[in-house]
């Protein structure tokens, strides 16, 4: 058990390097958006979800639109429901308390490393948890470094830093490409988002665009399995 924790921690250090790098970008953006250090640390430890934190900071302003931000962030995090479900085999034989304890520190990275490891050898949930602690460590180190550095960069837009969000999210979406069936839903998403954004003020275009594209995917899949 002890070994599993330590192995999990160590196995997540290589991927932790890129976690550190993203974190430092988020930290710099926090300065731009006037997010305080305390708010950043609370998000790191309590939310502990990189892409959602990027979304939250992106939508951050002096007058916080709590409802839109919460809905959008939780929709971005909906995949954790699936991630949780996929960890079912790891927790066979675990108590309910262990499930509640270990599931908080589950991020994309330590989840992926754990799933990969599970294919080759039997491991306990401690491996997942060790990985979570490892990612929490690199994520905090990265975001706080970026936050400390961010104050020295007077005009982040000049360096294209505001485009970091866009690039990361776009690349993340592409990384979810499974095949040709993705193309139509994605095009519909983009079109609806652009049209709604130009017509309706605020951030509702995100959720409306996403749901439109996702419904296309559901109908498309239905048609395929029927025909």
């Amino acid at each position: 058990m002890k070994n599993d924790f330590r192995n999990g921690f160590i196995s997540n250090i290589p991927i932790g390097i890129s976690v550190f790098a993203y974190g430092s970008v988020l930290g710099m953006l926090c300065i731009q958006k006037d997010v305080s250090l305390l708010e950043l640390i609370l998000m790191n430890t309590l939310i502990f979800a990189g892409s959602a934190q990027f979304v939250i900071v992106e939508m951050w302003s002096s007058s916080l639109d709590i409802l839109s931000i919460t809905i959008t962030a939780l929709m971005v995090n909906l995949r954790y429901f699936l991630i949780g479900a996929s960890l079912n085999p790891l927790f066979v034989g675990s108590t309910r308390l262990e499930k509640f304890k270990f599931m908080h520190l589950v991020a994309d990275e330590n989840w992926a490393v754990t799933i990969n490891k599970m294919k080759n050898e039997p491991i306990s949930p401690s491996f997942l948890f060790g990985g979570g602690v490892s990612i929490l460590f690199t994520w905090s180190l990265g975001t706080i470094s970026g936050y400390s550095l961010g104050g020295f960069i007077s005009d982040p837009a000049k360096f294209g830093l505001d485009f970091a969000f866009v690039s990361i999210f776009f690349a993340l979406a592409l990384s979810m490409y499974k095949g040709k069936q993705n193309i139509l839903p994605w095009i519909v998403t983009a079109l609806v988002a652009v049209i709604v954004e130009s017509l309706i003020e605020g951030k509702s275009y995100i959720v409306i665009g996403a749901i439109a594209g996702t419904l296309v995917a559901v109908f498309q899949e239905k048609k395929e399995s029927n025909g």
Partner: protein
Amino acid sequence: MDNITLTSLLLILGISLGTYSLRVSGLLLSNKFIENENVKVFLEYLPSTLLLALVVPSILKEGLTGLVAILLIVVCMYKTKSILLSMIIGVGVVALSRNFI
């Protein structure tokens, strides 16, 4: 520095609670919920469509630079699957265009 408003505290706590619930309920409800094919497809597509809906309007606002940047990101992801490298390319293209063009 260490200022936090009640609004932002509530926001962070709300999202934290929601995210934790998603993680735990996914594990506790495994198998049951995901039996439904429509729910499965919906949940599978939501992350990518959300991310796209979030960024596409910002890309178009950047004009030609934005299009060049995402084209290079598509190539980069196809060849390397590195999100970090994609970020560097995207930021690089925009920085170059803002400073030199």
